[in-house]
């Protein structure tokens, strides 16, 4: 183009440009190229948004499933453990998707005519609210179960990590029965743990527990005993093994494994 320019520069701009137009040296791009580009940008934004939504919901689901979500209710120590339990890699990945989404959205006049904070907040809010809503649906539970018994998801291994406690002080389990010291729970790994209550055990949402309640117990574990610093009942976030002879849920597709 530089050579073309040097040739054209000997003529006035209008003459050199019109000469290039008439000779066919420069051609108009067809309209379909612009339409295709706009459609691809919209599809790209939607796909990025869906990925961000999926990861945001997975973060919420993971935290609820491993119990970390409920730990801040037990005070500063709980808050500290919660922060260390956050899936930072997933959070960074979600943030990356949000940044790219914001860059794509800023091309449109509804975004660039307003301060960046507005469009960024709108995107974050939609993804957060959507993430909470998706986390409430059985989608992650189903994917987790599917992976557990079939192991064929493209994100193989991701859901398997969910049942692994991320922090030694958080224990989610179903109450099996009561003892003089407290109660016994069965966790998702199938272990039976004795939960020992003490005067300092915090129960911010009451102490009205019964058999088969799902609880999160916060406190250090010594062998099969957990010294409870805090306990609260939570919604059941997935199946607990009934015993050593458990079978995959009937609704899940069976494989040859």
């Amino acid at each position, binding site marked *: 183009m530089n050579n073309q320019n040097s040739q054209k520069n000997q003529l006035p701009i209008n003459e050199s440009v019109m000469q290039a*137009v008439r000779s066919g040296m420069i051609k108009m*791009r067809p309209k379909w190229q*612009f339409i295709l580009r706009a459609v691809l940008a919209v599809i790209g934004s939607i796909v990025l948004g869906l990925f961000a939504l999926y990861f945001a919901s997975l973060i919420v689901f993971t935290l609820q499933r491993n119990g970390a979500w409920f730990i801040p209710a037990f005070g500063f120590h709980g808050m500290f453990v919660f922060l260390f339990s956050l899936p930072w890699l997933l959070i960074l990945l979600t943030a990356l998707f949000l940044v790219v989404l914001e860059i794509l959205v800023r091309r449109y006049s509804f975004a660039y005519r307003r301060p960046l904070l507005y469009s960024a907040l709108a995107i974050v809010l939609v993804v957060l609210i959507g993430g909470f809503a998706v986390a409430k649906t059985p989608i992650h539970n189903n994917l987790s179960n599917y992976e557990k018994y079939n192991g064929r998801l493209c994100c193989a291994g991701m859901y398997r990590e969910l049942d692994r406690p991320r922090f030694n002080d958080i224990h989610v389990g179903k109450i099996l029965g009561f003892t003089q010291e407290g109660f016994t729970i069965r966790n998702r790994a199938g272990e039976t743990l004795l939960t020992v209550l003490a005067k300092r055990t915090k129960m911010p949402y009451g102490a009205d527990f019964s058999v088969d309640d799902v609880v999160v117990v916060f406190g250090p574990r010594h062998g099969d005993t957990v010294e409870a610093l805090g306990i609260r009942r939570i919604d059941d976030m997935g199946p607990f093994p009934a015993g050593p002879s458990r079978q995959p849920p009937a609704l899940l597709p069976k494989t040859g494994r």
Partner: protein
Amino acid sequence: MDEATDEEVAARVQDGDIKSFDILIERYEKKLKRYAARFLFKDDADDIVQEVFIKAYINIKSFDAQKKFSSWIYRIAHNEFINAIKKKKTEKILFFDFDLLFPHPAAKDSADSEAINNSLRVMLEKCLDKIGAKYREPLVLYYFENLNYAEISEILHIPPSTVGVRLARGKAILKKKVNEIDPTYEQSK
């Protein structure tokens, strides 16, 4: 002289009447050369303006004839000028600008009198090269191209309130630079 609006002429070019593109070049050549001369201060400003018209012709089918043609072609010019600055590395162009992040108090087109604006234009002519590209560009578009906040917002892809903020800061920098050159200027006014 063709009485049709820019948008009507552009629509004719889109429909294949390539001769009409000459009308658009005639209407915008002086304006874009003036914009380039004040924003870029380069010897090769003509080459860059020529490149703007070539890009405009190639991409004319992406122009929405319901919108203003002037904002569309000035946007192409802005992109070309910024690329030229980046290529020559004469000035720093930041990728991210914190001014865009937060809302600013609603900035309105200032209602300065023509006398004040003329005085500002004289000052600008003296000191434009001493003002950074971020503030120089809205000053050029507002005071020399006579565009309003909404049009500048469309060209630079920034909120109109940010245009107001940049103009105000640009004017403050301008006054400081003028005083540095001629300390008696403020008193003589």
